């Protein structure tokens, strides 16, 4: 068994707001092993990005990790001083963001932005950093990298910019890369290029990766393990095959059933009724129960505990409890 790189325990992240605290992440626990790709899926607003930003210590100014620990290589990131955190970011842990259009500083050249982490963390001279920068651009597949170094972000296409972001993120050989929906804003053909690139590089550099996405297709392509989030909570976790082939949580099932299949014309689209609750909405019991077709009384009263389906797959749903499991399970498997 490979060593664990990142271990998040009971992470609670809240936002201060005029209407009181808003919990965006409600007690998430997961871990990432060396060389492994963990995918976090869930719909918009369920707390995926906030989870990632909590790890990076880059929460917006009104955000706060109010509980839990984040241990990265045995060090608790949640308790580090800003100075120590600076040394970790961009060096041991890197992150790529969703919007390639805005993630690069418009007023500096690509070269400047790629040299920066090299000079900070690896203490390279400007010249060395420049040479290394060109290598990195080459590595992520950017044509004529020497010229690109002197160009500005607006002179590059979205796909190119995302490659630059990847090059920056990988510049110091991080042991963990967090990619927050790196392809959502891109066209399918470009998306395919980027995903392939990330997959290749991960192998090549032997890093661990957390991939955040809402696209089940991407998950299937890239993940080793998958976490499904709903309304700030992790509701299901398991190996990618288990999640796709034996989804246990009604939400996971719903999610899979509501994506039209390109290959199957007769695929029966089954929408999940309703929509995501607001952060501050008070929902008793399971946060999914208002939308759950299988919900019963207990779901409305008590928050479900985590049930282990296999040693790798766990799910938070009362349907897993003895007795009800049969009933719900049968209906679900008939999907």
């Amino acid at each position: 068994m490979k060593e664990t790189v990142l271990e998040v325990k009971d992470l609670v992240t809240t936002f201060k707001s005029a209407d009181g605290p808003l919990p965006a992440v409600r007690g998430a626990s997961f871990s990432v092993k060396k060389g492994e790709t963990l995918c976090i899926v869930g719909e918009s607003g369920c707390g995926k990005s906030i989870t990632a930003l909590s790890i990076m210590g880059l929460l917006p100014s009104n955000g706060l990790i109010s509980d839990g620990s984040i241990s990265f290589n045995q060090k608790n990131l949640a308790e580090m001083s800003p100075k120590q955190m600076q040394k970790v970011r961009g060096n041991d842990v890197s992150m790529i963001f969703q919007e390639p259009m805005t993630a690069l500083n418009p007023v500096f050249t690509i070269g400047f932005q790629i040299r920066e982490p090299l000079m900070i963390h690896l203490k390279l001279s400007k010249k060395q950093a420049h040479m290394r920068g060109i290598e990195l651009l080459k590595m992520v597949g950017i044509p004529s990298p020497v010229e690109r170094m002197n160009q500005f972000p607006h002179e590059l296409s979205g796909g190119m910019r995302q490659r630059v972001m990847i090059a920056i993120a990988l510049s110091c050989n991080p042991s963990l890369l967090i990619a927050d929906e790196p392809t959502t804003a891109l066209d399918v053909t470009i998306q395919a290029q980027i995903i392939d690139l990330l997959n290749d590089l991960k192998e090549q550099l032997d890093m661990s990766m957390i991939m955040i996405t809402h696209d089940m297709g991407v998950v299937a392509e890239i993940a080793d393990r998958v976490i499904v989030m709903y309304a700030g909570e992790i509701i299901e976790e398991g190996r990618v095959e288990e999640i796709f082939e034996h989804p246990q949580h009604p939400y996971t099932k719903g999610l899979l059933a509501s994506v039209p299949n390109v290959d199957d014309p007769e695929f029966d689209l089954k929408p999940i009724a309703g929509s995501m609750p607001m952060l501050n909405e008070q929902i008793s019991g399971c946060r999914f129960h208002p939308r759950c077709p299988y919900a019963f009384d207990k779901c409305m009263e008590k928050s479900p505990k985590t049930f282990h389906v296999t040693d790798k797959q766990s799910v938070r749903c009362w349907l897993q409890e003895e007795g009800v499991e049969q009933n719900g399970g049968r209906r679900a498997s008939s999907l």
Partner: protein
Amino acid sequence: MAVDEQVLYSVKNVKKHFPVRGGMLQRVKNHVKAVDGITLDIYKGETLGVVGESGCGKSTLGRTILGLESLTEGELVFNGNNISKYSSRQLKPYKKEMQMIFQDPYASLNPKQRIGDALEEALIIHTNLTSLERRERVLQLLNEVGLKEEHYDRYPHEFSGGQRQRIGIARAISINPSFIVCDEPVSALDVSVQAQVIKLLRDLQEKHGLTYLFVSHDLGVVRHLCNRVLVMYLGQMVELAPVHKLYENPTHPYTEALLSAIPRPTVGRKRERIRLRGDLPSPSNPPTGCPFHTRCPIAKEHCSTEKPAWREIDEGHFIACHER
């Protein structure tokens, strides 16, 4: 789904070029050829999908068809009437027949207008109903798209994305059009909600006998919803075919690449992907010859000089390619 073979809307060699200004006197220096010669027949009751990468002119085509953009060239024939040169007054009865549903459910509703008023507006413009009758009709519409009567007095920001999209749909069908352009109506929605809206669109089509032009970049949705699909590249037609033929037998290399690039939500089966080189060229400066030749894996020399003809390779299956 049986497609009535009656042509509702005929689009003939339509072009839409946007001027690019620059230089000393802000003179027009160049043109973005957003739509560059599209010829189509849209049949009554069908759903015609339009797919392609961002910026290839899908939305512009939709808007041009609706008369929201002036034509640079070409003809629009609706129900046998050539409406390309009509004044806005002459167009008014046709506007009633054609409607649009938009991508962004947040931007497509006036945030300062109550939902009821927004829905009544079309009725005020196109009908002579009294305010009572209008209200009646709006309540009926709300019900039809799955909203409640009490939503009548609410403002858009009080709704979720999916609900707003329902309102947008209600507005589009309020004056009983026969033709609706759907410009990526579900791409901004969460997957779970997306399916709800797709279902609604389908039900409404059945009930009212609507014809859709369905613009999307989500090939899964298109396969699910459309009868025929048009693939566009840089403002030009690349392939047009009935949906099953396109998906099962993609012929143009671009269509092929597009289909192969989609990540499939099934594990284990690793499929070989056709990798495309580079990015979409700029539509203001498109490549000569076949627009796709710069990225095409099978491009030959003549592809860069000769424009491929639009030909039928199978019944209802058209492509523009020298090599296939």
